[in-house]
């Protein structure tokens, strides 16, 4: 073989070895989660004694077994689940299992090679390869939660792969794979979302969501009203229903009020309001700017917690 062709075959061999190393590295903290009949799902030992997996794979909460990389099976206790982001957190007694080397999903780039790792059948490692196909910003799931980014990959999620780690070529975990948030597409739940939801589930057992107690309908504001009130927007949200004793009613909001801003956020459609209703704002008071009877008014509203 010529020197050039030797170098050339070395290129692919080097890449092949790196991929196998990345899988081996990821395997050290990749577990199998047995929480449903038939196929075990994936999971990641995120911190000592804490396993993160996909919420949708849990069918029986009271009977969860975790298969560890060393072959041992241990009982798992559900700490909490958040269907909105398709995440669940499970505690195990064993604190010696290596935990994941976690990277940042924010550092991912379209076109980057990524590998999904799992233990289908609960024991041996399996892998699937692809690239990051698309990344866009904050994304609301159809189940009411928010992912910090919408990360699509083109790899195949074989049975048992949901809930398991997505890793880069160094074996760092850059997300958790799920087929449960987008019909037919594999998504990676970003590490930033996982950290946020995990903290909430470990502390409170759930992810709290803000609640106003109103039904809001986007409306276009008449041009002369916009001019008269010197508004910077042409849309607002009209109060069409109100819950008894909800935060809006307690704040003095009335049917027919048009909400145009909540705190610093102009409210042209319901997405704008949802953005303010994250768990971090539960219990906080915000100024609600509204139009009542053609005049501007400001009320103070304390964000409640959705039950």
């Amino acid at each position, binding site marked *: 073989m010529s020197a050039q*062709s030797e170098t*050339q*075959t*070395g*290129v*692919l*061999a*080097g*890449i*092949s*070895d*790196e*991929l*196998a*190393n*990345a*899988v*081996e590295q990821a*395997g050290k903290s990749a577990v199998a989660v047995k929480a449903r009949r038939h196929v075990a799902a994936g999971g990641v030992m995120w911190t000592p004694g804490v396993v993160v997996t996909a919420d949708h794979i849990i069918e029986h909460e009271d009977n969860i077994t975790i298969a560890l990389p*060393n*072959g*041992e*099976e241990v009982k798992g206790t559900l700490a909490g689940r958040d269907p909105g982001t398709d995440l669940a957190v499970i505690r195990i007694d064993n604190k010696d299992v290596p935990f994941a080397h976690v990277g940042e999903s924010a550092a991912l780039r379209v076109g980057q*090679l990524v*590998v999904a790792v799992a233990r*289908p*059948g609960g*024991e*041996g*490692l*399996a*892998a*699937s*390869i692809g690239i990051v196909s698309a990344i866009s910003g904050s994304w609301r799931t159809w189940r009411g939660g928010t992912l910090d980014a919408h990360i699509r990959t083109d*790899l*195949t999620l*074989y*049975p048992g792969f949901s809930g398991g780690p997505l890793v880069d*070529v*160094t074996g760092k975990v850059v997300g958790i794979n799920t087929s449960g948030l987008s019909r037919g597409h594999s998504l990676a739940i970003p590490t930033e979302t996982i950290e946020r939801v995990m903290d909430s589930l470990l502390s409170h057992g759930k992810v709290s969501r803000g609640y106003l107690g109103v039904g809001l309908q986007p409306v276009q504001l008449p041009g002369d009203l916009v001019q008269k009130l010197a508004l910077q927007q042409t849309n607002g949200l009209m109060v069409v229903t109100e819950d008894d004793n909800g935060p809006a009613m307690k704040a003095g909001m009335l049917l027919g009020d048009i909400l145009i801003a909540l705190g610093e956020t102009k409210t042209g459609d319901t997405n704008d309001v949802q953005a303010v209703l994250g768990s971090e704002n539960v219990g906080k008071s915000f100024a609600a700017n509204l139009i009542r009877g053609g005049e501007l008014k400001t009320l103070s509203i304390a964000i409640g917690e959705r039950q």
Partner: protein
Amino acid sequence: MATAIQEHMAHAPGMNAAMAHLAANLRAATVEVKVENLGAGSGVIWRDDGLIVTNNHVVRGDTAEIVLWDGRTFQGKVVDRSAEFDLASLRIEAHDLQAAPIGDSSRLRVGALVLAMGNPLGVKGALTVGIVHMVPSGRDGSSEDRWIRADLSLLPGNSGGPMVDAVGRVIGVNSMVAGGLALAIPSNTVARFIAGNAGPAYLGVVVQPVELSNGFATLAARGQTAGLMVLSIRQDSPAARGGLLPGDILIHAGRRTLAGDDALMDVLYASDAGTPLPLTIIRGGKLTEVTVILGKREADQA
């Protein structure tokens, strides 16, 4: 710290050149197999004296047309076939053949690059790349399995063609697609077939998977939770001669952990008749070792 991948990807021409180089060599060792003038599948030039390997299901009759990459066409005569292995070998009278280097299929790692070449859907010399999806659990890092399982796309027409590793060595003969995965017959099995083994080795037991209760799980290494219980033993079989008894629970066979249904069959597919197979078993609640000498499967045996 830049990884080898980051470096090579940064110099994309390096990786592209490497792929192209591998493809060119592989193309020269891949043939098209035609039956009655229709493309039936692909094949591998296994030896440069004219031995061609393909799938049994690609070649029905005694002959097939073998078309080389350079366009030369030969009539291939079937030398041997095995329905169980899904392999067939043919001979062509040809010179200046470039056989593919053969690799050891038992050393593949999960995640390693594999590439397949063939004639999918009539396209000649098409290359596809993926990774090794899974290898069965063995005790020393090696694996003998009935299939190489790859996360890779195969299409009709790829059957019988080569699956190679990152340095272009043939580690499998593409056989089929199952559950989205590509399955290839391991090169070690092909070697066994060419050496005269018509199919898997024979033990002579009927087994059933059992969960290891009664604390038996701690007897097996690494918290293995299942084994294979021997329900019955065929008369005069290797199992009978080796002293296996009904009720024995098989835990390991050779290097392979016997945790699932197919595990024993995988081992038999990867073993030669006439060779010893060490078995770790639980008998009467105690762990013990029994070695059997595997036999040849006769035509009428299950």
